[in-house]
């Protein structure tokens, strides 16, 4: 029940925050923070009550309740290490989003926070759902408020971006719905148990062709969210036009639901189809890494640039998942967290800069370091994180992904590494163009305010902690990842070393 409360608190909080705007905008913001804080307490309560157990059972907490029994649909929620971390990330970025829109959003504050909290509850629902219908329900639920968030509070071209975002995700979602229903019938005809329950649908036997088609239905939906080439084109528009909080949530969380879907559903439910499809997915991933990086370098709009780096970084996640070994998959998880934090921070910084100089155009910036030194330093740090500097979170993720991929395909590893070199170029390019170089004429600009310093402080701590001590994270997700890998490697006894070597590696190798 505690899991259901995590979702309900945010839904109710959203409604209350909307109503609270009658009194003042401050009330809406405070109610939102309060709702997030209550959720955080719930998550911590779960964490504390399970701290004692060294080997985490598969589901830390599970909750099951009938919903539409005629169809075998239940309200089945479950929390394991992977969902736990992602929910923590969700709440963390939720706080950041509320805080970073403190000044930026001044109109219709109540409705803004309503949308914000409903998106977050949809995302948490996605991370918790263990019933495929319920999963799809939450998957779609978060789209409408996100659409409003972009469409109402976004920048100049917001309506176009919002509709494009909605169309891409909705149509791909319907493809997934067909695949879900297909899986339901395949399982039902085999066993005459018609159910949408994830645990029961695991290990459904089906012919390779059917498995491949159904897998593709899921894969396309998740690839759109991730996003992977060639279904990425909604992302630059949506990220650029969204308000800062929207961009943070899009990059930090919405993209992660795609990665989560791959890990939770695609790989375990269709292990054989995934194995057959893995080379294609990995090539798509590497193309994404290179393509995103090259296009990022070509942008003059700072926000668009950061958006393209997301494509590049999420390519590593896709690569890590489809390398199908534990190291790479753990790397993908770390990359999810690292990218969530670092890109979120970059979007907050771009937003703060936009508030001050009213442009996101790199060509109209330059020499900002001497004007706003604190901002420059923080941007530098997150640019370094983005290029994969050791000691910061993204490095661990990318390194583990490359390490795992090396066992599968050396050429792809090499190409992906080239992507990191590109990352160096565009990351330093941001700092170079905006903060160094000839100084332009600016009116007197305020540096980071205490509120912004607070936001950035939190994010800096998070990214450094992830970079220096990833072991707790690896421990938390290990059981979940092992369970996924086990599904794939059941018939692949020939290569057991892949799953065993992580212990020795992570003890010595973590920087």
């Amino acid at each position, binding site marked *: 029940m505690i899991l259901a409360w995590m979702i309900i608190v945010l839904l109710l909080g959203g409604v209350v925050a909307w109503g609270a705007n009658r009194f003042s905008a401050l009330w809406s913001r405070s109610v939102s923070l309060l709702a997030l804080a209550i959720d955080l307490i719930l998550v911590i309560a779960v964490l504390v009550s399970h701290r004692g157990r060294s080997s985490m059972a598969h589901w830390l907490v599970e909750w099951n309740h009938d919903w539409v029994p005629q*169809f075998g649909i239940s309200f089945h929620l479950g929390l394991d290490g992977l969902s736990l971390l992602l929910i923590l990330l969700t709440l963390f970025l939720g706080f950041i989003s509320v805080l970073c829109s403190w000044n930026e959003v001044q109109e219709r504050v109540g409705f803004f926070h309503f949308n914000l909290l409903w998106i977050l509850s949809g995302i948490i629902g996605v991370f918790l759902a263990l019933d495929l219908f319920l999963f799809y329900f939450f998957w779609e639920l978060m789209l409408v408020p996100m659409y409003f968030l972009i469409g109402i509070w976004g920048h100049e071209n917001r309506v176009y971006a919002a509709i494009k975002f909605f169309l891409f995700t909705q149509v791909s979602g319907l493809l997934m719905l067909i695949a879900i229903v297909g899986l339901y019938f395949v399982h039902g005809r085999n066993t005459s148990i018609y159910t949408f329950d994830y645990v029961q649908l695991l290990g459904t036997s089906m012919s390779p062709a059917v498995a491949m088609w159904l897998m593709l239905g899921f894969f396309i939906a998740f690839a759109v969210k991730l996003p992977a080439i060639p279904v990425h084109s909604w992302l630059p528009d949506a990220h650029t036009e969204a308000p800062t909080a929207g961009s943070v949530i899009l990059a930090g969380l919405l993209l992660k639901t795609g990665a989560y879907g791959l890990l939770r559903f695609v790989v375990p439910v269709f292990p054989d189809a995934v194995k057959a499809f893995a080379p294609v997915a990995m090539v798509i991933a590497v193309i994404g890494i290179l393509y995103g990086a090259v296009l990022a370098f070509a942008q003059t709009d700072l926000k668009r640039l950061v958006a393209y780096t997301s494509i590049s970084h999420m390519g590593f996640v896709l690569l890590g998942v489809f390398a199908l070994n534990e190291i790479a998959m753990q790397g993908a998880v770390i990359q999810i967290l690292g990218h969530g934090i670092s890109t979120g921070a970059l979007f907050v910084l771009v937003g703060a800069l936009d508030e001050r100089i009213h442009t996101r155009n790199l060509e109209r910036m330059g020499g900002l370091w001497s004007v706003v030194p604190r901002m420059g330093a923080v941007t530098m740090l997150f640019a370094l994180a983005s290029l994969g500097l050791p000691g910061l979170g993204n490095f661990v993720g990318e390194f583990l992904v490359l390490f795992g991929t090396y066992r599968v395909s050396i050429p792809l590893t090499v190409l992906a590494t080239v992507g990191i070199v590109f990352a160096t170029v565009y990351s330093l390019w941001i700092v170079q163009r905006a903060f160094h170089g000839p100084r332009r004429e600016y009116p007197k600009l305020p540096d980071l305010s205490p509120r912004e310093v607070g936001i950035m402080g939190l994010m800096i701590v998070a990214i450094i902690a992830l970079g220096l001590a990833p072991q707790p994270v690896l421990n938390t997700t290990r059981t979940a990842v092992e369970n996924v890998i086990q599904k794939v490697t059941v018939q692949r006894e020939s290569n057991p070393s892949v799953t065993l070597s992580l212990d020795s590696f992570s003890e010595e190798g973590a920087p």
Partner: protein
Amino acid sequence: MTTADLIALSPLIVLACSTIVIMLIVALRRNHVLTMALTLLADAAAFALLFVVWHSVPHQVAALLIMDGYSLFYMGLIFAASFVVALLSYGYLESHREQREEFYLVLLLATLGSAVLVASTHLASFFLGLEILSVSLYVLIAYQRSSEVSIEAGVKYLILAAASSAFLLFGMALTYADLGTMELASISLLIGGKPLSTLVLSGLAMMIVGIGFKLAVVPFHMWTPDVYEGAPAPVTAFIATVSKGGMFALLLRYFSRLGLHYSGSLFLLFAIIAIVSMLVGNLLALLQTNVKRILAYSSIAHLGYLLVAFLAGGSTGTAAVTYYLVAYFVTMLGAFGVVTVLSVEKEADAMVDYEGLFWQRPWLAVVFAASLLSLAGIPLTAGFVGKFYVIAAGVGSSLWSLVLILVVSSGIGLFYYLRIVVAMYKDAPREGRITTPSLSLTGSVALATLTLLLFWLGIYPVALIHTVQWCIANFSN
């Protein structure tokens, strides 16, 4: 005719009598509130009598009508929808100059016609029901005699409906010429299992033309946008729901009984109609700027979705059609309800009438947005569960290409629903827009109920699914 027959027919008899009562009362004394109250009472009484009839189902009345769970369910739906339309019409008629009272009289007649359709088991009752419905609709559509578009729409509908009735009659005649019977049961016995003769096949095809016209599926959809636009908003709501729903129920009953559409040329025919309805409806809606026309094309597409479930067949298909129709009724009534309450003095059908609605009339905008999202099939709304049900039925019968086209076309559909939503939360409400007075009480009650239903069916569909399965339990045999 026995007492049992009379009891079984009591809902229809009540409706028929109440039209006469209302007509006499109007002749004596015009009173809008009284007339509306009597109309609501008639609908409610007919609805309540369904529960009385429920004890004796299935009951065949002569060869013409059957009162089984299926007809009772659809009658309930039709009476409820007619009740809501009457509620919505009150505020609308108050703000218009026409004579108000006759509207209700004709509305009840049209309801009666649709109710006869869902219970029909004989080509004669089919035609009778259809004509009662059509003739009432001619009047309702052209009810605003001072408005040119309304009259134009009425005349258009009159001519086309008469032509399609001729097709239908000719089709019935051809079938009768070959089989020598007009009873559904005997027809299904005579043609069961054998290949169809040319005469029957062409008869059926012509009947499909007549049915297709009423359902407004492509290629018989040409009248829809004009009539939707020209008719008074509550009448449009009635056409979109009661008229189409009654006809679809009949289609489902006849063809499930005959079992013809599961294979062969009729399957192909229906599949083509479904595909082009989905695509054409959604694509043409993209080009519209008038909200009522957009909803007209949207309803064409929705009938296409319904045909997918219809083709899936079996108990899942029937249940899917029924659930979808309930969701569609609730949603369409909600959407046209908002159009109705905004239509004071002139029809609120231009996109500009909705600009900034979100900030001026937030509740109304929420109702409209919820209805549009339900039409688009977004979670939390009735339309989502309906669409899920249809897809489940389609996948269950392996109609892969139909389901894929459904997905693609509803993706296109999203686009124009969102356009209206975008207009609603746009800034800068236009200067000089007619400021609408506060809602009539009846209108707000109707809209609030519809919205609650919309969310209830989307969040907790169990009760309705259960009722549907219960009512159609004996349908297929």
